[in-house]
């Protein structure tokens, strides 16, 4: 069903011409517009006006459809937030497992509905807290988890079979997941009922966040092993969260975020298919994670375009038959990089706009950033305001009361179509480069992103783009917001616990599991079972990653700017 008939459009063309030549012309003669060029956050030009003529080829059923049905442009659930609100999931973690455990319990008491773990740098890079490489990094940007003992403490008193937990971990994802599984089993839960997500998206690490360790090929093997293992053993777990968030934070445009993320998604699908898995067995557990940046309509369009592109590719290109394989389910987080150190209270407003865009874009879960994140780890008060922001959107704004309320906006639909087209152009370019991994190795993605990031900064430097409090509306008042203080004894406690674990465990058993793990890594079996055995024996994260570092080697990226 085309949205408009040709006769209507013909009349409209005449009306538009008349308006342009008369009403508009007169106004412009009297008063020119504020700027010569209007553009989105991604530097995409924005027209003065959008009308049905900008979406004249649209077909309602083909391009939008009904919520909960292909191609899911209007959302993945048939009732969306009328049925159930999105999951309010605040990313948290700092210092020791005990401190983060307290923060989790606080957030659950405040009405948060899912947990999300931030790990510290050494954990993200697969080092134990006391490794020489970990100097100065303990607990700074997340919680330190060096062994099963830390994971048990992290979830002490939290029923792991009842909460859903998202863990932002990539290179060591398989090991941290194994720790979670064993800790939950020790709490008495069957692994089959566990719900949650591991980020486990190594491709975007090479592209943007740079928390890679091994070369792309063994890295992809570990990811595929977790997808396979999850498909068979943890049917409710999202084994990967294919993330555009970090690509965007690294400075990409919205279209680059969209295109590179979905291209990564296709690469994981293809790797799992090559492994011999059936698409409808694993695709329903693939999940996504997008950024919600400042440009309201561009962001909403991005979420809608992402769902439509994914659904079309899964159905038409990869032949998936289960509707759950077609659905792009996503988490969203507001844009950390958009926050300013100047006048930090203004960040509450930025986060509100961004969060509203994510909700109008139809996200399944959401993290809202805290106002003080351009200065330090968020304080409890700042986190509470950020969570309250979501609750206000949910209960006071009215936005969740009807499904995809902005559908049919000429501007939004045009933007959604345009982003889909531009993403398709990137897919063709990536295919011409022989795929994502080759593109990473020759720096294609990194260069595209660096270029966009630089352009954005120059727009600010030259005042083509105004950031309130930064290059306009500047106030030279000192910033006064409370900063989170961490327990200074935390490091000592963590190192002592690690020493105790190493002393009290059965070291012969650890040696044995590590040897078996090494043999498995040299072969081609699924690595999850031997990782779980090593974790259960209290082998540390550093020891297990050490085995992989030895077998797989470490990756060094091409450096350029």
């Amino acid at each position, binding site marked *: 069903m085309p949205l408009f008939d040709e006769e209507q459009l013909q009349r409209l063309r005449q009306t538009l011409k008349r308006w342009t030549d008369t009403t508009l012309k007169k106004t412009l003669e009297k008063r020119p517009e504020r700027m010569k060029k209007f553009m989105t956050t991604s530097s995409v030009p924005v027209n003065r006006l959008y009308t049905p003529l900008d979406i004249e080829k649209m077909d309602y059923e083909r391009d939008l459809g009904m919520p909960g049905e292909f191609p899911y442009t209007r959302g993945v659930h048939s009732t969306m937030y009328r049925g159930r609100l999105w999951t309010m999931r605040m990313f948290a973690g700092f210092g020791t497992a005990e401190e983060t455990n307290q923060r989790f319990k606080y957030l659950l008491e405040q009405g948060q509905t899912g947990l999300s773990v931030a790990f510290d740098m050494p954990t993200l*890079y697969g080092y134990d807290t006391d490794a020489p490489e970990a100097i100065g990094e303990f607990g700074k940007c997340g919680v330190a988890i060096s062994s099963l003992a830390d994971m048990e403490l992290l979830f002490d008193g939290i029923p792991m079979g009842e909460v859903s937990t998202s863990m932002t971990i990539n290179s060591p994802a398989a090991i941290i997941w194994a720790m979670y599984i064993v800790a939950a089993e020790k709490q008495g839960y069957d692994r089959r009922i566990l719900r949650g997500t591991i980020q486990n998206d190594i491709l975007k690490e090479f592209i943007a966040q740079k928390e890679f360790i091994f070369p792309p090929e063994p890295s992809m093997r570990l990811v595929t092993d977790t997808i396979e293992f999850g498909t068979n053993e943890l049917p409710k777990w999202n084994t990967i969260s294919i993330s555009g968030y970090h690509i965007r934070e690294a400075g990409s445009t919205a279209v680059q975020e969209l295109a590179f993320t979905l291209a990564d998604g296709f690469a994981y699908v293809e790797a799992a298919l090559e492994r011999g898995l059936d698409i409808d067995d694993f695709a329903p557990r693939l999940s996504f994670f997008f950024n919600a940046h400042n440009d309201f309509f561009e962001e909403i369009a991005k979420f809608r375009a992402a769902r439509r592109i994914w659904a079309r590719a899964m159905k038409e290109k990869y032949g998936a038959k289960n509707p759950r394989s077609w659905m792009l389910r996503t988490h969203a987080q507001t844009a950390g990089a958009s926050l300013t150190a100047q006048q930090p209270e203004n960040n509450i407003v930025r986060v509100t706009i961004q969060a509203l865009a994510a909700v109008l874009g139809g996200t399944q879960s959401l993290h809202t950033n805290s106002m003080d994140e351009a200065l330090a780890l968020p304080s409890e008060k700042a986190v509470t305001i950020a969570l309250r922001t979501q609750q206000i959107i949910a209960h006071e704004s009215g936005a969740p009361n009807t499904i995809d309320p902005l559908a049919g906006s000429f501007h939004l639909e045009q933007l959604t179509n345009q982003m889909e087209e531009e993403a398709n152009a990137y897919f063709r370019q990536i295919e011409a480069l022989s795929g994502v991994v080759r593109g990473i190795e020759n720096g294609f993605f990194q260069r595209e992103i660096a270029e966009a990031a630089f352009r954005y900064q120059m727009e600010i430097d030259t005042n083509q783009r105004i950031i309130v409090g930064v290059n306009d509306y500047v106030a030279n008042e000192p910033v006064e917001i409370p900063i989170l203080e961490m327990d200074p004894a935390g490091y000592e406690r963590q190192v002592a616990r690690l020493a105790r674990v190493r002393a009290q465990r059965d070291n012969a058993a650890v040696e044995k599991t590590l040897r078996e793990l090494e043999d498995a890594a040299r072969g081609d079996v699924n690595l999850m079972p031997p990782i779980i055995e090593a974790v259960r024996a209290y082998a540390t994260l550093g020891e297990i990653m050490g085995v992989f570092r030895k077998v797989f080697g470490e990756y060094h990226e091409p450096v350029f700017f």
Partner: protein
Amino acid sequence: MDRKVRVLVAKPGLDGHDRGAKIIARALRDSGYEVIYTGIRQTPDMIAEAALQEDVDVVGLSILSGAHMALVPRVIEKLKELGMEDVVVLVGGIIPDEDVQTLLDMGVAGVFGPGTLTSEIVETIENALGRQPA
């Protein structure tokens, strides 16, 4: 003709968030400096040695992980050991206010947070080197 000012942009520690480092490297190059970028995951020793080898006038450290109070003093100490105490050291990243003064007292010439204009960095470099801004 004056020798071009040489700047080493480095990322110490494990933090891989290199958006800022790359932007600064390129902006400084566009401002007429000779810029060397180390890439990510550099130890303080590696950075100081690179500074010596490249004979730089300025070392810019980009740290977003919160490990600045552990890493910056080590870089400064190592630069001193190598006889490079005159090198201008700049720090960029997520640096809480209370740490800024400590870093400045330690000899850092400028600390830059999110929302810094690249022109401010150029100005700091020129002042620290005792030159008139270009």
